[in-house]
């Protein structure tokens, strides 16, 4: 089914925004319920059945708060930062194929576009921290930059490895290349590269670091930096940052599912569809929550050591190995 062009555009715009909004709101609920389960608590229970209306109550609370801009802050950048964190996540979802015929735009450079927009997220958080004129926020901004420079490299190396295997940057084609059962998924493509599962783990670790999730949440680090770059944000300004964090997780996990786990392909080769994509996506999101409530926050040098001393050499090694394997077989 194909709608005429302007309607298609509008439908996808509304669809993507609704998807991101709903997910951002309810992933907060999932996170809180998940955290509670991991710590053997009930979690939110009072607002609605099983606390299901909690995100609405949170949003109502944040919306009713006064929007404050610190007197010394750079007003324009300060107000712009939350928008700049949220917008790239929405842009990235435009090219992500949810199903065989379900995707806003099938771009030939889809993968490149996702990473191009994905890195704006970092800059936006940095700008927000910088514009706040708050010492904690500025420390946090500096950390974010060095952290993301460190993790962008292994991430890109992993993606290059994958590009050599798939031979295309079109996400739809990458998924189609993995058709026919879970042994055809890139994560199990051991012929191209016997270390493919390791590649997936590196991607996942880098994704956690890029989205500033625990144990790499040096940006927020509430025990040292109050709330890091978000210290001066009140009301919905903070709320948008919060939603953007989940929107970015959503993008990162979608990409993980597409690149490594075969996107909307079924693991048995039959009945492929949107359901499989969502299942894989939410399994990865759950793992993100799971990781957060398992590991304590790393120290900053530990984080940089992990990237420069382990992830980058290993992913470089994998890159070389893959090129050799591709040449030989």
């Amino acid at each position, binding site marked *: 089914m194909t709608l005429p062009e302007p309607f298609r555009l509008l439908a996808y715009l509304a669809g993507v925004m609704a998807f991101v909004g709903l997910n951002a709101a309810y992933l907060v609920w999932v996170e809180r319920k998940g955290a509670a*389960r991991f710590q*053997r*608590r*009930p979690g939110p*229970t009072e607002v609605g059945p099983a606390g299901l209306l909690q995100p609405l109550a949170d949003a109502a609370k944040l919306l009713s708060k006064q929007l404050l801009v610190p007197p010394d802050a750079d007003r324009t950048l300060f107000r712009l930062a939350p928008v700049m964190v949220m917008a790239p996540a929405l842009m990235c979802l435009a090219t992500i194929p949810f199903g065989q015929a379900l995707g806003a735009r099938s771009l030939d450079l889809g993968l490149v576009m996702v990473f191009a927009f994905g890195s704006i997220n970092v800059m936006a958080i940095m700008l927000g921290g910088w514009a706040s004129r708050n010492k904690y926020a500025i420390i946090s901004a500096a950390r974010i930059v060095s952290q993301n420079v460190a993790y962008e490299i292994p991430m890109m190396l992993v993606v290059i490895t994958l590009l050599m295997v798939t031979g295309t940057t079109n996400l739809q084609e990458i998924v189609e290349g993995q058709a026919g059962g879970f042994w055809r998924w890139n994560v199990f493509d051991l012929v191209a590269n016997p270390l493919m599962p390791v590649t997936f*783990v590196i991607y996942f670790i880098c994704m956690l670091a890029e989205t500033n999730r625990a144990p790499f949440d040096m940006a927020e680090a509430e025990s040292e930096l109050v709330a890091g770059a978000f210290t001066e944000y009140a009301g919905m300004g903070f709320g948008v940052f919060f939603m953007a964090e989940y929107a970015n997780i959503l993008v990162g996990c979608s990409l993980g599912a597409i690149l490594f786990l075969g996107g909307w392909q079924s693991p048995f080769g039959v009945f492929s569809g949107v359901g499989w994509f969502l299942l894989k996506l939410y399994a990865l999101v759950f793992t993100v929550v*799971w990781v957060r409530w*398992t590991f304590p926050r790393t120290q900053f040098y530990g984080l940089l050591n992990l990237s420069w001393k382990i992830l980058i050499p*290993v992913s470089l090694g994998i890159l070389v190995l893959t090129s050799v394997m591709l040449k030989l077989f």
Partner: protein
Amino acid sequence: MKRVFQDVVGGFKSLLTGMRITLQQFFKKDVTVRYPHESLKMAKRYRGHVVLVNDPETGKSLCVACKSCEKACPSDCIVVEGLKREGEKKKSVTDFQLDFTRCSLCGSCVEVCPSDALEFSKDYNLASTSKEQFVRIDLVRRADEGKKPETGEGQA
């Protein structure tokens, strides 16, 4: 080189072990007592403020107004008044005031009581916005009405 390799693999294994442990906890029953909706049963030897006990047969107080507790109290927070009624062998209590702001729950009164008329209550929700609520707790009335003092609700 070998050591680095061992570090990385060993470290990764320990991370997986940690994740396995948290996942096991994930599926266990939660341990929270949903407090305002439910509360714990207090232990047998829990000491709330003292209360007078009525004789379960006659429904009258076991207290004989001997004032031993009044004398035994180190904080001087008990005031007992009693009188001897016509046709009764023992004195009976007419007034038993407890100043809970000074009571240290030492239990001397409970120990010294010759007729076992005092015991510790299991009230722990003793919160109020004014001190006056606790200066004079009328234990006779409390025992006769068979209910908790004006403060606090959740007796468990």
